């Protein structure tokens, strides 16, 4: 299990490739990966920049707790969560959740559960900058199910 916070751009697929090397090749029947990136639009407006604030210390603890609870619920062989903070540009990766298991249901359900809990429990906040320079805090995340 690994939880990482990035202050600069990261390559989620390189992280997945490397993390998979640590999992026994003959057992990893299923991998489920979610990559979230910054769009250049939100709620019908063009967004030119994004700032991601977080609560250093609590952020890592919350992500580790969410992953540990998923590991207790599903038979996972591996799990990797990465999240971006600071100033972000359109197209940059914001979040990676990758899970490995012997079977597809555990990998898929754990990946989905970790992502949804991260979005509603982990202490991150988005502030968008619009084309005219105005800034606005994103009010809330929408339900994912």
């Amino acid at each position, binding site marked *: 299990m690994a939880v990482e916070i990035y202050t600069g751009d990261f390559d989620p697929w390189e992280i997945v490739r490397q993390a998979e090397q640590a999992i026994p090749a003959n057992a990893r029947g299923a991998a489920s990966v979610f990559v*979230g990136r910054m769009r250049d639009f939100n709620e019908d407006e063009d967004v030119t920049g994004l700032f991601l604030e*977080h609560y250093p210390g*609590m952020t890592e603890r919350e992500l580790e707790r969410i992953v540990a609870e998923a590991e207790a619920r599903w038979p996972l062989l591996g799990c990797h969560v990465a999240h971006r903070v600071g100033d972000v540009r359109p197209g940059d990766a914001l979040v990676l959740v990758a899970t490995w298991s012997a079977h597809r249901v555990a990998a898929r359900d754990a990946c989905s559960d970790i992502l949804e809990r991260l979005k509603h429990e982990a202490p991150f*906040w*988005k502030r968008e900058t619009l084309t005219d320079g105005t800034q606005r*805090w994103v009010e809330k995340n929408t339900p994912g199910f």
Partner: protein
Amino acid sequence: MTVHVHYFARLREELGRQGDAAELPGDSLTVGELWRHLHQEAPPERLMAAVNQEQASLETPVRDGDEVAYFPPVTGG
């Protein structure tokens, strides 16, 4: 008792500061009572909180030396 308070995101901007160092009488109160003590009003709707970097509710007790954080709904991912 002394409590270290942090504010985040929109709340930090609206209050104009990152936190408060609160000196309080007694040896325990709740997260909601601490907010009322600091701001002289009821906690805003949908306020989230943490005590010692763990999720908390308005009823969670706060003790001497604790780190308390108040913040708006989270929007990561």
